[in-house]
């Protein structure tokens, strides 16, 4: 415990949490959210959907297998090139990590990316606080105080998505991938299924693109209502008949474009153990989730149905159109990290593109 003292301050809590610093020695603020997964910190830290958040792990020991080599290659063991969280809050940091695939220690990697971490925090008490009072703003203070920062006030996609159109692969199915902060494993899942990916920045007017077989709206950070531009483009795409598949933020944007509202969950779903049920069946799946907002499906627009429902709290986990090949899910079928039980949804998407190719061409 020779590491310097670090403090964690919450907006809605008088208590100051004292811990020790690891990672970069800089103060940082953001929205405090908790994740219940027991493994997969590399994947979560590089997941663009966590942009602007201070991530709390309920599982106490973090860092035990280090960090693998992370480069620009999408086949690497990460979800993007960078760390997207603003800070990491854990109970017990593993100072002596080991794994055959390890390149750096977690602390070194955080330092390299300018992100602070704090360990020695009672994360169980902190999580209980968030569960009772809802997600709140917080800051990790190392030497000087800084103001609170609310990431949900701004559009975060521009900070995490690519700058210009990029093409991947030479497969049979051309997928127009709208990058709102896409995770690498979505690309891998498509490339493994004979796809060519046309990845465009979130703000691009994809209604101007025409050479594609289907649209995939990716995951991404923040409040879906800050994405007016994309919602407009999706409204346009919904008039067409080509398949559309939405994941996480993509699901919310399809919902908003179809006329469904969204609201913020008290403390979100973040973890690898969220159960969902395929509507009208007895098929249940364990899914990987990371979202704070959800679709309000009390009244559904005509022709839209619920595709999946959360077994724990009954919230909407996905939509499907009754007669067009449009569907979307709130969870992460690409997982990484988390269970890959719903990866078959990518096969559905391919199947949609396959049959609509036959129908419309």
């Amino acid at each position, binding site marked *: 415990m020779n590491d310097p003292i670090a403090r964690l301050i919450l907006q809605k809590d008088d208590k100051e949490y004292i811990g020790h610093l690891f990672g970069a020695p800089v103060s940082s603020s953001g929205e405090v959210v908790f994740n219940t997964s027991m493994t997969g910190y590399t994947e979560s830290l590089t997941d663009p959907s966590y942009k602007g958040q201070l991530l709390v792990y309920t599982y106490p020991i973090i860092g035990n297998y280090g960090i693998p080599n992370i480069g620009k290659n999408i086949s690497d063991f990460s979800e993007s090139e960078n760390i997207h969280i603003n800070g990491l809050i854990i109970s017990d940091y593993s100072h002596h990590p080991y794994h*055959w695939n390890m390149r750096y220690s977690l602390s070194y990697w955080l330092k390299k990316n300018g992100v602070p971490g704090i360990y020695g925090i009672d994360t169980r008490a902190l999580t209980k606080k968030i569960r009772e009072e809802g997600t709140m703003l917080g800051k990790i203070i190392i030497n000087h105080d800084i103001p609170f920062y609310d990431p949900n006030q701004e559009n975060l996609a521009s900070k995490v998505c690519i700058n210009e159109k990029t093409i991947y692969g030479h497969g049979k199915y051309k997928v127009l991938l709208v990058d709102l902060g896409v995770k690498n494993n979505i690309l891998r899942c498509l490339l493994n299924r004979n796809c060519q990916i046309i990845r465009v920045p979130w703000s691009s007017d994809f209604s101007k693109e025409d050479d594609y077989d289907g649209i995939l709206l990716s995951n991404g950070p923040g409040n879906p209502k800050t994405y007016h531009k994309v919602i407009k483009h999706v409204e346009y795409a919904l008039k067409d008949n080509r398949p559309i598949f939405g994941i996480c933020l993509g699901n919310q944007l399809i919902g908003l474009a179809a006329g469904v509202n969204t609201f913020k969950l008290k403390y979100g779903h973040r973890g690898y153990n969220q159960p969902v049920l395929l509507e009208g069946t007895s098929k249940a799946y364990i899914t990987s989730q990371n979202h704070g907002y959800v679709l309000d499906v009390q009244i559904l627009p005509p022709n839209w149905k619920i595709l999946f429902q959360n077994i724990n709290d009954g919230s909407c986990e996905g939509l499907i159109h009754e007669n067009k090949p449009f569907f979307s899910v709130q969870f992460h079928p690409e997982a990484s990290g988390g269970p890959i039980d719903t990866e078959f949804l990518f096969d559905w998407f391919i199947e949609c593109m396959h049959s609509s190719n036959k129908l419309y061409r």
Partner: protein
Amino acid sequence: MKKILVIGSGALKIGEAGEFDYSGTQALKAIKEEGIETILVNPNIATVQTSEGIADKIYFLPIYPKFIKKVIEKEKPSGLLLSFGGQTALNCGVKLFEKGVLKKHVLKVLGTPIESIIASEDRDIFRDKLNTMNIKTARGIVVHSLEEAFSASEEIGFPIIIRTSYALGGLSSGFAHDKKELATLIDIALSHSSQILIEESLKGWKEIEYEVMCDRYGNCITVCNLENFDPIGIHTGDSIVVAPSQTLPNSEYQKLRTFSLSIARAFGIIGECNVQFALSPNSEDYRLIEINARLSRSSALASKATGYPIAFIAAKLALGYGLHELKNYVTQTTSAFFEPSLDYVVCKFPRWDLKKFSRSSTQIDSSMKSVGEVMSIGGSFEEAFQKGLRMLDIGLEGFINPKKKR
């Protein structure tokens, strides 16, 4: 379903202890809750499941096909639960099936079908099934001479492990790292047995287990995974076991988890099963070691470590419920179809009593020697580890140097 026969835990002995009393008791409670009459066969009066109010009727008879058959003839139950009494109960059920007793009395085995149990126990069927699923198992070749042993060793690659058939206590088995060592071992082995098994050595590989629950709709979850502190080669019962796994990143964890689920589905498990893997410490290479199509020592540990009532839910699944239809008995509001996320670490320590067995070796190996165990929970691995060592009650203060002055 009006009357169900449960085969109980039997005698407590090394390798088969209190965990089967626990699982049987849970199962009996789960069936009783449904208003179904329960019959228990268990010769051991010193168990919880034979206490008053747990089962409706108890037969204090040995777990032998002969006696179970008589109980079936007398009671005429319509359902039979085999997977709650350990390996003895399972073997007994398989024998009754093979003798045609179950068919004769139109007795339905609830939960995992008996054909699946046989498939999981029979080495050949097991290996064939996994080969068709492209899941790797440890490679092994049966040889009868030195020449055959050499060609087998070339195919498998050193190091290899040599086992003789029908030899007790690992007699004349051992590791060979080159042809010279192999020749010596084969020489000795051939003097004991004409059949020798040459298997690839997984010495030093990590031993990882998953506890899987499956319902009749094919919905599956893993309640928990366990990592053995001692690598492959040491029996799980003699090993320090940690839950959840400590050294696996997401890709390895999910890869093995996905295999576990597809194996459970392929074998038609309804209820609980335990899947054991060897995982290379230097790559993502793995081998499936075995599956247990029943409640096991590990499932009892997983149950206590996570709070998920595995045996209770397994009994409900055997009665035909789906996992998503059952409640999480901890929260009472959420579903039993979930995977517990721990915010603590669990360690299990074996407790030996080898002084009582004067001539036994104090070396631990692939057959179990411990007579009991201690489970500890902590907010860090160190905490759980130290707690466990202290609670073994053998005078240890923990993992410390006793000579060092404080």
